[in-house]
Every structure is written in C-alpha cells, then in structure tokens.
C-alpha cells in the first residue's frame, strides 16, 4: 500500500527533528509544572473547600497530566505550516502529478510525525509522569481505556482535518499563520488546554459542547478520568464522529475549490 511507504518515508524524514521534539517536550513540562503549582496554591488557599467543581487536587493534577499525554499524541505540530508552504511554493504540483490523494498523503505524514514525536517525548514526559505517579490514575476499567483510545484517535483526526482545512486557505491568502493562530487560540481555551471545561459556569460549558473544540482534547481526557460515563459517553463519541465527518467533507470541499483556484507559481 502506497501510503504505508509515505508513512515510512515520513518517519525517516521526521527523525531528523527528534532532538527538537525532545527539547519541545521537555520545555513543555515547565509550564505544566507551573500550572500544577498554581492549582496546589489555590487548593491550599481554600483549606475548607476540598474540591473545585468536583475536582480534588489529585484529580485536577491528573487532568493536566492526561491532557499533556493526549496533546502529545494528537496535536498538529508542523503539518499546517508545511501544507501552506507546499501550496505557496507550488510544491503541490509534484504531488498532483502522482497517483496520490493529497489528504491521505498528509494524513500519513501527520501519523509519522506523531509517532516520532511521541517516541521523543516518551522519556521526558514518562519521567515526569512517574514523578507524579500519586496523581496519575489508571483508567477505571479496560473498556474505559478502549473507549479512551477510540476517542483519542478521533481527536487526532479532528485536529488534523481542522489544521488541514485551515492550511488550505493558503490557496487564497498569502499568510495563513494569523488565521491558524486565531483558531488555535479558541482551541486552546475552549478545548480544555488551560483548564477542565466543567469548572466553567454550566451554561457556558454546555454552549461549548456545540463547537468542535471540546472534542479536540477535553472529551478524551474526561473519558479516561471517568468523568463522562454511560449514555453521555456514547453520545459524546457519536458527536465526535460527526465532527470528524463534517470536517472531512469540509476539507474535501475546500480542497476542490482551492485546486480550481490554484495556478502553480512559476510552474
């Protein structure tokens, strides 16, 4: 299968960046530790209260640890910049000539990138998780873990498709980075990078559920931590699948429009 080869080549190419990835994962632990310290101080400042919106200090810590793991597995790192650069420099002309689908091609490269990143991050993040082992909980049961794995996979697809579609804006505008950062900002707060979404006022948290953002990080973490169970869990997974399909159709549409608009630079 040809995309298997793309994956292999992608792994070899990304291995060049392993030192960079190692540094990024290691530096990334420092803000994480700062956040954990911050929450410790908050819990210490309210000794009578016990928990915040149903989170004990240990649960809160576990949330951030899990978010770090899911983020390492699913976050888009360089892919969107590369896609935008491919379009801007006219590199996609080469790919259009090959019997390959660009989306599948980029998806294989994304998977390769995540594999290498996860491997590079394993040492620093793994060490950190071991050091925090009293907060790092195991999932309630094997089925929970399986559902978490499914949800994480869907999260990765959603992350990829959204970034892919955003990067395709390069067909129309010269500089896509601002748009990517705007979407990233929303993803950062509404996806649950900054704090678990259920500490928000309930109305606001409910409203966010109508956006794709919670399914880009918060949802799989909640599944793992057992904060969403039963019917709500299945409903959430279904919504996640729907978002993936919606984003897939959107990505295809934007690509079709874009390619019609495209005229190779210097080609």
């Amino acid at each position: 299968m040809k995309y298997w080869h793309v994956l292999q080549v992608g792994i070899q190419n990304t291995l060049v960046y392993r030192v960079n990835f190692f540094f990024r994962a290691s530096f990334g632990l420092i803000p994480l530790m700062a956040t954990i310290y911050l929450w410790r101080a908050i819990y210490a400042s309210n000794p009578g209260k016990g928990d915040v919106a149903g989170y004990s200090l240990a649960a809160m810590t576990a949330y951030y640890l899990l978010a770090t793991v899911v983020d390492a597995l699913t976050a888009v790192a360089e892919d969107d910049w590369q896609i935008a650069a491919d379009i801007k420099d006219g590199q996609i002309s080469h790919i259009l000539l090959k019997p390959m689908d660009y989306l599948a091609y980029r998806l294989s490269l994304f998977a390769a990138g995540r594999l290498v990143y996860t491997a590079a991050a394993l040492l620093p993040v793994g060490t950190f998780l071991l050091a925090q082992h009293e907060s790092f909980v195991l999932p309630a049961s094997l089925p929970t873990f399986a559902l978490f794995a499914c949800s994480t996979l869907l999260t990765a697809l959603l992350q990829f498709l959204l970034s892919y579609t955003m990067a395709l804006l390069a067909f129309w505008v010269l500089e896509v980075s601002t748009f990517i950062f705007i979407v990233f900002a929303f993803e950062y707060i509404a996806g649950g990078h900054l704090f678990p979404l259920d500490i928000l006022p309930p109305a606001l948290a409910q409203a966010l559920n109508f956006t794709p953002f919670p399914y880009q990080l918060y949802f799989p973490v909640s599944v793992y931590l057992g904060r969403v169970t039963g019917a709500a869990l299945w409903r959430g997974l279904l919504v996640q699948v729907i978002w993936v399909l919606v984003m897939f159709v959107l990505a295809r549409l934007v690509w079709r429009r874009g390619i019609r608009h495209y005229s190779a630079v210097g080609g």
Partner: protein
Amino acid sequence: MNSSSDSTFPPRTPPPVAMREPGFAALRRYGRICAALWRNSVVREMSFKANFLLWIFVELLWFALQLSFIAVIYGHTERIATWSKWEVVLLLGASQLIQQVFAALFLSNCTQLSEYVRTGRLDFLLLLPANTRFLVSFRQVDLGAFANAAAGVAVMAYALRQLHLTPTLGQMAGFLPLCAAGILIHYSLMFLLATVCFWTVRAQGIVWSYYNLFNLARLPDAAFQPGWFKAVFTFVLPMLLVANVPVKHLAALPRTPWESAVLLTLALLCFAASEGAWHASVRHYTSASS
C-alpha cells in the same frame, strides 16, 4: 595626495568631536543607525498592512484568553496564596507590557540570528563599521507589539482602579526601571540562547521552546512553594522576578526587601553572560559555504 604629506601639515586640527566626547557622539551615531534600521523595518512591515493588523488581533486574543483564565480561576477561589484577583490582573498587564516591549524591540531579532549564521549573511554585518551585536539586535522593530503593550497598560490602569490604588510618583519611578530590568533579562537570555546557533543550525527550535517560559512571568510568585523550581526560576532564569517585582513595587504589595536588588543585579549579570557568549560565538564563527 599621499600619506607621507600628512606630516607636512603642522597645524594639527583639534580632534573631531567624536574623539573628544566618545560617549555622547557614539550615542548619537548609534541613535541615527537605529533610526535608519527601524525606518526600513517599518516600511517593510507596512507593505503588508492587513497582516500587520491581524497579528495585533492575534496577540490581543491571546491576552484576552489569559484574562479569562484568571476570571475562571477566581470564580472558584478568593485568593491564590496572598494574591487577590485584581492584583493578578495587574500582574498579567505588567507582564504583557514587559513581554510585548521585549517582542517589539528584540524578539524577531533574536530568532533571526540563526538565519544570519545559516545563510552567511552575518559576514556582511560583521564588516559594517558598527558594533555587530547592536546591528543584529536592533535590525527590526515590531510596531504591532507596541500596540499590544499599550493594551497591557490599559489593563493595568483598570486593575489599579479596581484596587483603589493611585501609584505615587515614587512608585512609578521605581516601576519603570524595574520593568526595563525585566526587558533586559528577557533580551539577554534570549540572545544568549540564540548564540547556540553558531554551534547547531537547529537553534531556532530551542529558542522558540524557550520563549514559552516567558509565560511563567505572569504567575504570582507566592503561588510557588520554596523549592528547586522556585529557586531556578528566581535566580537562574528569573522569570518569577521580571513582572512580579515591578508590580509589587507599583501596588505596594508585601515584598521581601532584597527582591529589587536581585532583579537589577541579575539583569546586569544576564547581560554580561550574553555578551560573553556573543564574543565566544563570533570568534567561533567560520561563515557559511562561502
């Protein structure tokens, strides 16, 4: 006219102003160089106006995001250690001010250094009759970041009103040099790290990873229990001092007396270290492929 004829002009003219007042003349000369560099940089930036405005918006959005984080957290607690809500907002504003002024003056210059080394353009800069570090550090200016710094000041003003504080002239006079020390620390450490590019071409990734640490500056220092983490980020990479100390001075918050002195001393030490690294790096430099 040949050089030997020099000796036939006995009436020696007084040395030019530059020789008599090296400090003042050099300052004026470098001021003019800086103005020329910035003019170029602004002209270049203004050819992409929409992009320029969008970047300001992106930065404002991220600033708003941090503010909403504080709003959410203080929905669940009255205090973080000793810090109340509006004190933390004040801190966030000050940290925004310091970080954005740093970004306006130095950020892209520091990240560009590895490009100069990689492409060999540093050769050209080294040949110019001016201090190379100065040229490298002041090549570009980012006007948009000044707009975002102003947003930081606006948030600070609002937070001060909420705290019913009117800083005295003395507090303002202490606040500004402490901010400047914070900017100098940011710049020196970033520049120090950027000189790593003389040894490895992948320095840019390291520099950007490091930039994430700037976010620590907006957290109240009292939230951190004494320990190695706090010690490192107070005395080695003083992120917990750069914004905390100026704010505590401005709002007369409880503070340890030595903090200001430590901040100022570390600013000078960091600058000296970056200067040392720069000289060692340039000596190590062997152009690129030319």
